[in-house]
């Protein structure tokens, strides 16, 4: 096995004249939180889609656990253990909280084509689902309809669904978005405990959270990674300051 969990190797993706990914390479190593930051329109979403599936790079490869997954579908990547959370909560809003995590457990266990046994009475599925809920602290919300959850609780549920996959790596798209200071702090603490289980590629706008959490940071600007390094490296990088932090200051 390679020493990195996830390898993005020289990925290119253009939409007409726009180079959304212009030769991006990055790695995710065991036990780390690797934050991907960059101003709006830098090509973060495009990169995430190429890693998670749903968008094919024009050139380059995505490797997961040493295996080339560039040609694999979103579902296959999830089966391999790539757990994903979304910027805008992607949950079955009409389901109860428990049903949402059971859905994750069904996907993980490959029991989709079981037609007769009731899913909500299946011990194995329920155990896995409840375990994930407990870890994010949503156990007391099992029977709540998902659409009735608060914004922060939906975030927690997203993470719980990803946890049911027993992922080998997490891909988290702005998990802090819309959380208050309190919620942000709680989630930060939780992610720190999570990274020893599986490394996290974290796309995040909340700079405080990024600087508090990340082991490494990559800065994406106009489809290129202009710097990768520790929090201090990035804080002191002149290029990053002008391209990114400068812009933040101005705003």
């Amino acid at each position: 096995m390679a020493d990195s969990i996830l390898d993005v190797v020289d990925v290119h993706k253009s939409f007409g004249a726009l180079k959304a990914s212009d030769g991006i390479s990055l790695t995710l190593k065991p036990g780390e939180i690797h934050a991907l930051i960059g101003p709006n329109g830098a090509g973060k979403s495009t990169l995430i889609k190429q890693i998670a599936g749903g968008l094919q790079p024009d050139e380059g490869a995505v490797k997961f656990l040493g295996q080339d997954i560039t040609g694999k579908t979103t579902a296959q990547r999830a089966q391999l253990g790539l757990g994903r959370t979304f910027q805008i909560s992607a949950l079955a809003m009409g389901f109860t909280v428990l049903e949402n995590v059971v859905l994750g457990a069904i996907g993980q266990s490959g029991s989709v084509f079981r037609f007769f046994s009731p899913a909500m009475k299946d011990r194995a599925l329920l155990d896995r689902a409840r375990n994930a809920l407990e870890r994010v602290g949503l156990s007391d919300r099992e029977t709540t309809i998902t659409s009735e959850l608060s914004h922060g609780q939906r975030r927690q549920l997203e993470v719980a669904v990803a946890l049911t996959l027993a992922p080998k790596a997490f891909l988290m798209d702005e998990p802090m978005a819309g959380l208050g200071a309190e919620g942000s702090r709680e989630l930060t603490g939780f992610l720190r405990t999570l990274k020893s289980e599986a490394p996290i590629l974290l796309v995040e706008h909340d700079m405080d959270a990024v600087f508090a959490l990340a082991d490494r940071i990559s800065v994406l600007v106009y489809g290129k990674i202009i710097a990768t390094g520790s929090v201090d490296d990035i804080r002191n990088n002149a290029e990053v300051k002008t391209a990114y932090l400068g812009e933040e200051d101005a705003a």
Partner: protein
Amino acid sequence: MIRERYLNLIILAGLVIVPAYALMVDEPFTITLATKVVILALAGVGLNLALGQGGLVSFGHAAYFGIGGYTMGILASHAQNYTPLMTSPFLIEGTNSMPVIWLVAVVVSALLALLIGALSLRTSGVYFIMVTLAFGQMLYYFAISWPAYGGEDGLSIYVRNQFPGVNTLVPIQFYGLCFAILLIVLFLVDRLNKSPFGLALDGAHQNEERALTVGINVYRLRLVAFVISGAITGLAGALFADLNRFVSPVMFDWHTSGQIMIFIILGGVARLFGPIVGAALYILLEHFLGGLSEYWFIYLGAILLFVVLFAKGGIVGGLSKKEMSHGG
């Protein structure tokens, strides 16, 4: 408001009491109407699995209804004329045994649904609606222009097919058969909805991205649901043909697809018993409004429009609270 399962029990009771009463007062026509309700409801239960649970708005379920009907018509016409269906590479003879016809109808309509579904599910949204409609219409035109089995005029079967131990010509006995099938299918579909498969199907309907990112192959999931859905509607088609002892291209017509959809919307989308209520209401309207006015479709259209615009949830939805979809 009452709980959905009590409402369902009332509906089932109605399906027992009405024909029983009709039998007592010797009203065979009412039994025939009830049989029609049960069969059309079965077609609706099939579509509801794809449309309600899976969110796959198929506007071409007449294809399966029709192919089920023609399966019966073709097998029975060969049996009644004592001609084999084909002789090479091996001999296939017609039959007038209902169980055999049902089995063949289920298999043939499942295969058709597999073919149409595999193509149609490459698309989504409004494309899916138009593509399924178009494929349904293709079979309609094929049935019209293929002269071997009656073409536009259709095909008459003079004697109802047979079921061991049942006199299928007695209306109440044929009703009993159809009702039993409906009950069995309802039971199976209920189990299916609660199974991991049903949960995944519903989950993918609510949020496709979510289903994909937990590793579910949504295309295959939907294709299987579509095939089961088509098979159930195909079985209903075979029964419907036996009820009328007649099949014609009208079974393939897109109005038939629309009708099956109307049962679901009148009764309540994704409600297990919705299609039964919808089909019953439809037949009642047809019977009474059709008796009042030659132009009863105007009233049907107005009612449908009202339900869609103002009464989402249909009758079952209006009378009962939604229970936990996969609980219990």
